[in-house]
């Protein structure tokens, strides 16, 4: 039974990445935790991954706060190009 639950580091870290977005399934989480019993490296990866996620999150908040608009100059240029395109 355990054989079926055994995964490689590559698979374990993929599941870990998925779980950073709360999208790992129950069975995947079991596999990941079993893997941790025998693998310190992936444990460390997971710890660091959580830290990275917090970092991404704060970056994300920053990014979303900005709304980006076209400058008036860009719009004028675009208008001109479109006019030329029409004729």
């Amino acid at each position, binding site marked *: 039974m355990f054989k079926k639950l055994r995964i490689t580091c590559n698979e374990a870290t993929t599941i870990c990445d998925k779980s950073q977005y709360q999208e790992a399934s129950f069975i995947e989480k079991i596999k990941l935790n079993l893997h941790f019993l025998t693998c310190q490296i992936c444990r460390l990866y997971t710890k660091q*991954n959580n830290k990275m996620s917090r970092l991404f999150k704060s970056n*994300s908040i920053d990014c*979303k706060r900005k709304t980006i608009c076209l400058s008036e100059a860009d719009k004028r240029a675009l208008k001109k190009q479109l006019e030329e395109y029409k004729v």
Partner: protein
Amino acid sequence: MLQEKITLNPDKWINNYADYLFNYAVVRVNDGDLAKDLVQETFYAGLKSAKNFLGKSTERTWLVSILKRKVIDHYRKINSKKGQAEVRMNFYDTGENEGSWIEERVPQSWDNASEKTIENQELKMQLEICIDNLPEKYAMVFRMKTIQEFQTEEICKELDITASNLWVIIHRARTQLRKCMEDNWFNN
């Protein structure tokens, strides 16, 4: 009562939709100049196929659907680009060690992780540099998923990729980013 048929009004496109479309493009491709080009192409394509507009949707929805095609075309282009910087492998691909960490890519403990706080502007800049170092395709999917926080389903639909495809990309992007941050920030 008959619903009034929506007609196109190209003269007002730029005033009404340029910002909206530009924003739509920029959160997906993360490049202002490229986004500008895509918006321009969208307007061109809109003019060209104006006669095909059935008036069933709003003008904006119709233009967005054109822009969507442009974004996916761009994704396909970067996806197939030959000789693009490939992501460095972190795991053995074949052999008896298949799926295990490659020794020199094994995560190292971070010695100064606690002092270097997340609020730090420099840290954010380093992160941006690391994301920019990813192959474009990985950066694009990673940003959509992690920074813009799109749903998995939505990304898959928009870029026409499968969920497992998406997770492989996210996984490669994240392992690469981890390594990049380790080398340039945490253990620097």
